[in-house]
């Protein structure tokens, strides 16, 4: 299964599901025009609340990542937003790879790098 939100992580489940759909697009696992599972089957498969799946789909539609087509289901949008996700991912990947290489060269461990990234993300990257 492509998606597997963790209900006890403290992160809203609809956000986890949205992230997982976007990540699947970024990695190419899902491409423009691909159909997503329906709300009902996905809720049943993941044993999660159908209202939560519906909320994630609504938000993804609002962001232009997916399209809800009348009578036929949810599809990865054929627009620039969805296409750009994959591009952004590749660009970001090489940037971050460079930073990680530099930090490793200075003897910073992977565990330390992970904590640095997470701390920076969580405090909004703002400094004094």
């Amino acid at each position, binding site marked *: 299964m492509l998606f597997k939100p963790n*209900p*006890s*992580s*403290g*992160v*809203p*489940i*609809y*956000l986890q599901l949205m992230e997982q759909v976007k990540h699947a697009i970024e990695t190419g696992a899902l491409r423009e025009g691909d159909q*997503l599972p*329906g*709300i*009902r*089957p996905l*809720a*049943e498969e993941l*044993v*999660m*609340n*159908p*209202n*939560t799946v*519906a*909320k994630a*789909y*609504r938000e993804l539609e609002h962001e232009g990542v997916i399209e*809800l087509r*009348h*009578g*036929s*289901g*949810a599809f990865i949008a054929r627009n620039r937003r969805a296409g750009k996700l994959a591009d952004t991912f590749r660009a970001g990947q090489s940037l971050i790879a460079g930073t990680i290489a530099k930090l490793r060269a200075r003897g910073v461990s992977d565990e330390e790098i992970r904590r640095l990234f997470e*701390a920076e993300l*969580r*405090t*909004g990257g*703002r400094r*004094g």
Partner: protein
Amino acid sequence: MKRSGVSSKRSFAQEVVVADSWIIETAALRKTYDGVEALRGLDLQVPSGSIYGFLGRNGAGKTTTLKILLGIAHATAGDARVFGLDASAPRSSEEIRRRIGFVSEEKDLYRFMTVEDMVRFTARFFPRWRSDLEQRYLRKFELPRDRRIRALSRGMRTKLALLLALCRGAELLMLDEPTSGLDPAIAEEVLQALIGHVANEEMTIFFSSHQIAEVDQIADRTAIVDLGRVVLDGALDDLREDFRRIRMVFEGDAPSGDLRAPGIARVQRKGRVLTVLSRGDTNPILDEARALDALSIDVSPVTLKEIFLETVGGEE
């Protein structure tokens, strides 16, 4: 009316909770048993279409609330309504029970009956009995029709009680500790059946539980009840989004004065470390932490379990 998944945009609108129609509502509900206050002004609003987890420790007042809603017990004071009907009036209480599927923690079944007898016996009381669902759940739960109930395992009994509740054609399903005493595999099967049911039928589920993990997994809304009162309620994802733990480390001992920023639910000091449980926007707190020259600031999500432990009190 059936939900149609993602087949149309209209189906999404249907899933939006309508805030002005509470399927269950209590106001200032009180119940005293022999001088002991089981409920001390319990306010509850359950929107229709939700899977609502009524979360609390043993003895918090969950079963008492369910009994009052079902008309089995009477409130000492306050108001309890289901479908807008007064749960304390005999006539409306009867209508409430007709429209509800209820599974008690004890799974009230006649031990001398076979599975088939129990199903036939129950079906007779409910004009809207769903034979289609009966057949589906008998197969799905792999219930042996000819076996007597006293010879069924606890898991089988739970599944039979659930089948009897699901097939009534009820608009509201009330469950008291639905998975208590079940092994993890059967518990997951029960949760799966509940999700499968609400995905296909227009229905509200209200279940009491002391197990945070199952509320986390299937509920979209929750109320945390403690010492006979609701201490926190709302959409689960909103609660997850709202609460944060902020840990600040200082050069010397953590400053002892109160933080002024709004949204601080709890503060803990230990040597150089100050830990704050926040609710709402974290930015004012982060700004204040920087102004206090914190060496490092770390923000992390808070789990429902942690929120629960922070909101319920100790033993009385």
